[in-house]
């Protein structure tokens, strides 16, 4: 019975997950001229700097999100439900606005003639060069993806039964020790899904780097977009880049899962 119930889902997965993946793989392994093999993969060596840059910037953004997000989630979990609800609402509110619009807003904040620099100038302070830098790209990633770090960690910490921490306290652990030995290890699954949910979109973003980075240093997302929508128009190379990026991300998640708790995984 349960099997028959699962059939629509199996069909859905086959249609929208498996089939597209196979098509992408097929494109990655073929060329416009009809060749079959790893030709596209060999072409990728030119783009090694792009891979490294994307992974590096996404890594920094993820670490920053974790450093900001974990304490936020922890503090939030100790508040009363009404404070929690309004805090989460405030966090979600900007996300109801279009992603592109939010990033454009950052552009006008960071520009040389933007909000911050005009403010600095009116205070007779030297202007800062912020837009079109890697820092601006990382800022865009952190700003846009921070909620994806806070929410899973918050949910997990909140679910830790108070009896656990009480037991630790009864056994003589001080609050620092309770956090280090009980709360933090139990919250790791949340951290892992938070890290995944920030890292994956960061590594593949293309709008953020275009708008805040000035398009001077391509990221993987830009490179892929260029193959599909830009002048390059090489679906085969674009598919190969996507596949390799996916493999790198998958490998990263696997490694993280090893580090993490044995029973819980970052991705279900």
């Amino acid at each position, binding site marked *: 019975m349960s099997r028959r119930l699962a059939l629509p889902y199996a069909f859905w997965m086959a249609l929208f997950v498996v089939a597209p993946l196979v098509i992408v793989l097929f494109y990655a392994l073929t060329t416009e001229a009809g060749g079959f093999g790893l030709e596209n993969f060999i072409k990728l060596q030119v783009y090694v700097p792009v891979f490294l840059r994307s992974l590096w910037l996404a890594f920094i953004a993820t670490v920053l999100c974790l450093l900001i997000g974990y304490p936020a989630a922890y503090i939030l979990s100790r508040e009363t439900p009404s404070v929690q609800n309004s805090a989460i609402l405030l966090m979600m509110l900007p996300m109801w606005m279009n992603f592109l619009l939010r990033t454009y807003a950052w552009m006008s904040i960071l520009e040389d003639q933007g909000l911050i620099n005009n403010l600095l100038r009116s205070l007779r302070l030297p202007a800062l060069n912020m837009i*079109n830098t890697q820092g601006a790209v990382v800022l865009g990633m952190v700003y846009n993806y921070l909620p994806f770090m806070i929410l899973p960690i918050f949910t997990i910490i909140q679910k830790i039964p108070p009896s656990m921490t009480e037991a630790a306290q009864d056994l003589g652990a001080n609050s620092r020790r309770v956090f280090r030995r009980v709360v933090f290890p139990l919250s790791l699954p949340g951290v892992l899904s938070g890290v995944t949910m920030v890292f994956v979109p960061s590594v593949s973003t293309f709008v953020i780097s275009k708008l805040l980075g000035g398009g001077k240093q391509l990221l993987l997302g830009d490179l892929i977009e260029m193959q599909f929508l830009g002048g390059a128009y090489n679906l085969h190379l674009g598919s190969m880049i996507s596949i390799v990026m996916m493999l790198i991300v998958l490998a990263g998640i696997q490694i993280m899962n090893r580090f993490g708790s044995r029973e819980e995984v970052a991705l279900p």
Partner: protein
Amino acid sequence: MKKTAIAVTAALLLAAALPGCASLGGSVSPGGSVSPGEQTPLMGLEAYLDAYPNIQDGPLYGTSINVNNWGEYLDESLNRDFRELTGVTVNYGFFETNEKLYSSIRTGGSSYDVIFPSDYMIGLLIEENLLLPIDTDLLGNYPYIMDDYKNTDYDPGNRYSVPYMSGTVGLIYNKAYVTEPVDSWALLFDPQYRGQILMFDNPRDAAGIALKMLGKSFNTTDEDDIRAAFDLLAGQKPIVQAYVMDQIYDKLESGEALIGPYYAGDAIIMMEENEDLVFVHPREGMNMFIDALCIPASSENTAGAYLYIDFMCSTEAGLRNLEVTGYTTPLQNVFDELDDEVREDPLMYPPDEVMARGEVFLNLPESTRALYNDLWSKLLSE
């Protein structure tokens, strides 16, 4: 059980999908396949309105056409007027570069009835059989197209395109900061203005400027020339603020950047907003372009597309479009209505000695296009 179900479904889907993908290679017949719109006889606007004086009787009443145009390139209230006139709704969308338009047509994700590609892109679309031939004899307003715009290199015999606007590319700079006299693209390569320079975000336009600096043609297929041009761009990259297209407009107008290449038609509007901006046609030569109305082979309402194209060539539509763009009209009926002041505007209707320096982009052979794309992605990857 579950796994086999997935595998079988995936295999079936692939079998269905792959031949479809393979045809992306472009074997659409030039005549186009049968589509609903073709059941309606193709006519010009006036003939249609004469045939169906009551628009609700017209076979196209209640249908719609998908139009894809450059941003800020048409008086959009004309779309509403067109619907009131013919009963055909216009779904109006935008594309940012010729290349994006090309890939959206090639991948077949969207079906357009009227598009506004530029010269070289029209050449490529014709080469790949992605356009429908247009029977210009049916279009009542077609005779207004000036002879200079007929029999072009990209569309000999005017079989696939109806010229919409033409214009030139030039150099815009902010005279509040750039005080020396400027007549050369070299300003874009001047390290003195590090961080204040914008550059086109597409290989053809960007490398075109570098080719002119080197005294070469836009349409050269010589690999050494093209590589030299990209070397020049690589040297320029450290002083470039950003590679952008439409954003050039805002960034120059607001003073966020001081120097950038852009289109003369937009420059006229920008200079009204920011009086410090100056436009020059550089002495090395510049791009002259013609954008034309075309019907993609995948069009589903070709009859509606004919009406729309004919409508855009009417005097009133032409004049109203000129008000929002400031480009050059290829329509004699529209040109005749213009004030002398406009007709003598050196940006809209540059004098002959300037036009002599202009060059049109032609469709490049595939190997050269591949080289451009290769060098361009390398330039931005480093």
